[in-house]
Structure formats: C-alpha cells, structure tokens
C-alpha cells in the first residue's frame, strides 16, 4: 500500500482543537504519514489535514479520525490557496506557518531563512541600524517605540558586555502570536536576536518566556541547541550565549524594567526611567529588550531592505500587523495584514460573524489595558496614530469580541481586580486606586451603588492615568471607563 504524506499542525491551539487525538489514532495506519508542521493560524478549521497535489496543497477541515478514507482517496479537499481567511492575508513574518516543520533548520534555510543574518553580517553595525531606521519599524510589544533608536543608543555605548533580551512574556490576554512564533518558527526569533547582537555588539541573550507557555519554551530550547550545533550562534566570532528563562506568572514582568529585575531573580517591580535599558539594563549593562514579534519581523527587513518594509502599511505604522482575533466570533485566529484596515473590515472579512446564538456587543483591542469599542465606533483604522488619537492602544494586537450576554459591570470589575492583583505596588494610585475601584464596582454589582460612584470611578481613573509610573496603572482605567461610557445603562440600572 502506498503511504500518503499529509501535514497536520503541532501547535498548542491545534492540539487543543483535536490535532493530537487525530495524530494518535492515525499513528498506526500504514496508508498515511503525518508531518507535523506549524499552524496556519486558522484555528477554527483545525484539526486541518493537508496534502500535496499537482496544484498545490489541499486541505480537509475539522478532521475527525473517521475522515481517513476521504483524505486518502483525495475527495472533498479544498485548495489551501482558496481559503478566504488565509487568501486575504499578507504573510511575511508568518509566511512559513502551516508549511514547515518548526525545528527543521534546513527547511527554514531553503525558504529564505538566515538571509537577513547573512545580510547583517555583510553590513557594519551602523548600517544595520540605518536599515532599521529606513524600515520605520516600531516595537510590537505595546509601546510602539522606533526600534532603530533603541539599537542606536545601545550600539554607541562602549561596554565589554551587552545583552539582547526577547520579551516573551506575552501577558496581554487574547494574544498568542509570540507563542505561535516560538512554537512554529523558532529560528526566526533566533535570527532576529542574532541580527540585534551583531548591531549592538552583544554576546549574551535571553528569552524571557511566560510560565504558561511550556511548549514554546521547549521548542525554543530545541531550536537553540540546533542553531548552536549548526554554528549559527556567534557574534563577530565570539560565541553568543542564548538561554530560555521562565517567568512566574506576573503580568507586570512584561514591562521591560520589571522583566530585567525578574531576570536577575528579584521581585519584578517597575523601575523609573531613565536610565533606559538600552543604556543600563541587565546587570547595569546596555540591553535591548524587544518583543518576540519585533525580533521575528527583522530578518525579512534585512533580507529585503528597509525600504521594502516602509512601503507597507500607513504613514505612522509601517509593515504588517499581526491581529490575533478571539472571543465570540466564528473564525478566531491569526491574521497578518498591512496596517490600515478598519476594525469593521477585519471583523467582516475574517471574523465570519458571531458565534452561534451570539449577538455583537463590544470589542476590546489591546489586551487588559485596551479600550472597548461599541458597534458605532468600528470604523477606526488599525494603526498606531488613529488609536492614539482615540485614546486607545493597539497593544500587542489582540482583538476580543464580546457578545450580548457579557455583563459590562462584571467585566469592569474583572479589569480592576486584575490591576489590583498585578500591581507591583510601587505607586499609590495604582496599588490603592485599583483596590478602591474594584470595591466600588463590587458595590454597584450588589445593587448598592449610587450616582456618586460613577463620578468617583471617573475621578479615580483620571488620577491613575495621570500619576502612575507605568502603563499598568496608567491604562487600567481605560477598559473600565470605556465600558461605562458606552454602556452607561448597565451601571445605572444597578444603582440602589
């Protein structure tokens, strides 16, 4: 009997959707061999089995074990190129997803990997930074700071030791693109970090990975080992040490100064800036802390040139955006598109409508510190400037859709409780204000709130915004205040 080679994703969410069970039941079958790849990110279709045909890959969706005969006979498949959710995307950073085996370095290489690093090695450190300046790449972790500026600072300081740190804390609930990169294309992160090491002259790197991502940490450790064996880990002929370090469940440790405190083994509290990590970071040495997606975007920029990157997107937001769609939509998943589409466009083209039995209520963009948008405000273009103007943030690109059953008072309470739990305690408005905010909302929930309480919340929010040291305290009021602004009835109705 002929054995047919098929592809099935090996990603945390693919496994959660049933890929593992499928692989287990089919593992004994002679007629099929499953190659485990990264995931395309169309998680609503998983487990998705693909096979090669003369016209490119075909896919079977939501495959159950007893679908084997159909797949083997080649009936009922859909050309991958014809899946609207994927077809309408512009995949650069995620070009390999669903195609390659995550830990196959040769495949990574064949598909254009390591070209960026090779280009960087032929350039002077100054020329690398210049390329990034031209690219107009801004950090993808949330603060959207121009990457080249940080690199230039670290490059120009003379120091016998410098560090490169990948922020893999991915604390914003609703986001998962860093996890996908680490599990699905780990060499891209390594390549990005190596380019940074070359640009600033670093010989040591760390990947600070959240505790909730055991599979990502495992994949990264394997990939580092493979890269080392292939002699990829060196910087100007010095060995480059790269290590995966685990966090321990603190949201604020995603903030760069807290992250570095945690990396040194201390309590992850936020430090006042300046000095910035690029001047004085880990162990007091110049340190670049960048988000995983930021590093993963850099190989293509060096390979194709900064001008290529700058040609994508909008005026202030160049390149592509990794939208991570979640919540009550039919088609949650990863969407890589140039900046500029409106929220409405993204929901219409990719979301596929609301989940069965659900009606749209609101969408939250940018994680637990991001604002809520009602239906009437979905015409906002997805780019840093438009969001800043609206007092909102794109954050790390998470978009969560809530349905009509969502209780806005409970949601607001959840956000205040989250801040109270996660505050590092350094500033009073954040530490105490979040507890007071939670108490007020609990009072409203019990039906004992007064009209005064909403003024109090708004007052408290303004104080937190104005006087907090970091964005946890400074942005925590936004989801709460936008909930009150757009759904005042729910808060007023509960008043005693």
């Amino acid at each position, binding site marked *: 009997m002929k054995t047919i080679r098929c592809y099935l994703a090996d990603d945390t969410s693919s496994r959660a959707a049933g890929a593992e069970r499928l692989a287990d039941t089919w593992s004994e079958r002679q007629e099929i061999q499953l190659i485990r790849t990264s995931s395309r990110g169309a998680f609503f279709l998983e487990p998705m089995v693909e096979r090669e045909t003369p016209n490119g890959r075909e896919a079977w969706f939501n495959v159950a074990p007893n679908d084997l005969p159909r797949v083997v006979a080649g009936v009922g498949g859909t050309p991958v190129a014809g899946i609207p959710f994927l077809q309408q995307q512009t995949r650069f950073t995620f070009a390999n997803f669903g195609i390659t085996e995550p830990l196959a370095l040769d495949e990574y290489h064949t598909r254009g990997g390591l070209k960026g690093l090779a280009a960087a090695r032929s350039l002077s450190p100054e020329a690398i930074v210049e390329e990034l300046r031209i690219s107009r790449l801004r950090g993808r972790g949330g603060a959207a700071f121009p990457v080249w500026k940080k690199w230039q600072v670290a490059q120009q300081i003379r120091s016998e030791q410098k560090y490169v740190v990948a922020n893999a804390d991915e604390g914003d*609930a609703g986001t998962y693109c860093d996890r996908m990169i680490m599990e699905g294309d780990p060499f891209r992160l390594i390549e990005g970090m190596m380019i940074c090491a070359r640009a600033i002259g670093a010989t040591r790197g760390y990947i600070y990975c959240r505790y909730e991502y055991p599979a990502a940490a495992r994949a990264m450790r394997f990939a580092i080992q493979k890269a080392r064996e292939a002699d990829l880990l060196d910087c100007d002929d010095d060995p480059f040490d790269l290590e995966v370090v685990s966090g321990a469940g603190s949201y604020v440790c995603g903030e760069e100064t807290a992250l570095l405190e945690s990396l040194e083994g201390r309590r992850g509290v936020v430090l006042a800036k300046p000095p910035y990590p690029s001047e004085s970071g880990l162990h007091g040495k110049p340190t670049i802390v960048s988000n995983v997606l930021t590093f993963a975007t850099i190989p293509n920029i060096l390979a194709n040139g900064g001008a290529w990157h700058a040609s994508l997107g909008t005026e202030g937001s160049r390149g592509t955006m990794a939208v991570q769609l979640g919540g009550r939509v039919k088609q949650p998943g990863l969407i890589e598109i140039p900046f500029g589409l409106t929220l409405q466009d993204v929901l219409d083209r990719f979301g596929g409508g609301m989940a069965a039995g659900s009606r749209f209520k609101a969408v939250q963009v940018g994680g637990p510190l991001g604002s809520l948008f009602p239906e009437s405000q979905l015409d906002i273009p997805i780019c840093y400037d438009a969001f800043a103007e609206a007092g909102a943030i794109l954050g790390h690109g998470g978009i969560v859709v809530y349905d009509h059953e969502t209780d806005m008072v409970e949601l607001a309470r959840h956000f205040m409780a989250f801040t109270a739990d996660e505050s590092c305690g350094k500033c009073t408005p954040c530490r105490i204000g979040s507890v007071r905010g939670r108490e007020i909302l609990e009072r409203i929930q019990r039906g004992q709130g007064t009209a005064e309480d909403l003024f109090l919340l708004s007052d408290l929010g303004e104080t937190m915004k104005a006087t907090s040291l970091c964005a946890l305290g400074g942005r925590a009021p936004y989801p709460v205040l936008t909930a009150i602004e757009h759904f005042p009835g729910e808060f007023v109705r509960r008043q005693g």
Partner: protein
Amino acid sequence: MTIRYKDRFAEILETCRPAWPDNPNILKALLAVQSARGYVPTNAIPQIAQVLGVTDAQVAGVLSYYSDLRTQPPGRHLIRVCMGESCMANHGARVFRAIQDYIRMTAGDPTQAERFTVEQMSCAGNCAVSPTIMIGEDLHGGVDPSDVPLLLEPLS
C-alpha cells in the same frame, strides 16, 4: 520528610549556588525547587537563603511576589482555568463554576481529599480555541461546562 528527599532537595539547591562572579538568582532557585517538588515549602526558606548567600527576607519577598510560585502542595491534579479576556468572552466563568460544582459534589468523600487543586490562571495563549483549562501540563480548549465531568472523572 525522608532522608532521601532531603538529599535531593540539597542537590537541587546546590545547582542553584551562584558561581563567582555571578549574582544569586532567587527566582530561578525557587522555580527549580517547585519544578522538582510541586511547591516551595516555606520552612525551606532559610536553607535556600543560605545556599544563595542572601537573606531569608529576600527569598520570602520573591516567593510571595510571583503568583505561580506555590507554598502549599497542590492536589494530585492541578486544574487551572483561564480567566483571560477571550476565555471570559466565551463564558469561561461557567466552566470554572462547573468545576467547582463537580468538586463540591465529591467533597464529603475522604478518598477525594487532595484530589484536585483548582486555580484561575491568566491567558494560556489558546485564545482562538477558548475557553481554556489546563490539567497539569495538558491543555484543553473549547471546553463546555458539560464537558467537565468527562474531563475530571478519569482523574483519580
């Protein structure tokens, strides 16, 4: 505590002893202890502090700061329910209640003691297949409250 266990504990700690000129890394040491033992007993703080060359208060400070560090032994099965926004939107709170109900149902039975520890967790990165729960390191997505008995029953 058996002698054997004590030796192992010392062994783990020994791997965390800072090699000059490195600084002691308290968090790393505590994570190493937890990954071997399932939790960090507070009565081990002096020993940990001594090996690392730091004060007891410094160790206690780090231990209390991080929510994933545990000072009590978990049950035989550690269940964590994601309370992130995508799971909230998909009514993960109902799954949490179903788990609590299931456990309450068996509460009087002495053979059930120490069977489960239930905690809330922040986002597991499985937002597209939410709501999410983790049982040990096994992640389950798209969990419906009605799935709960099926998931928990086989765990003894």
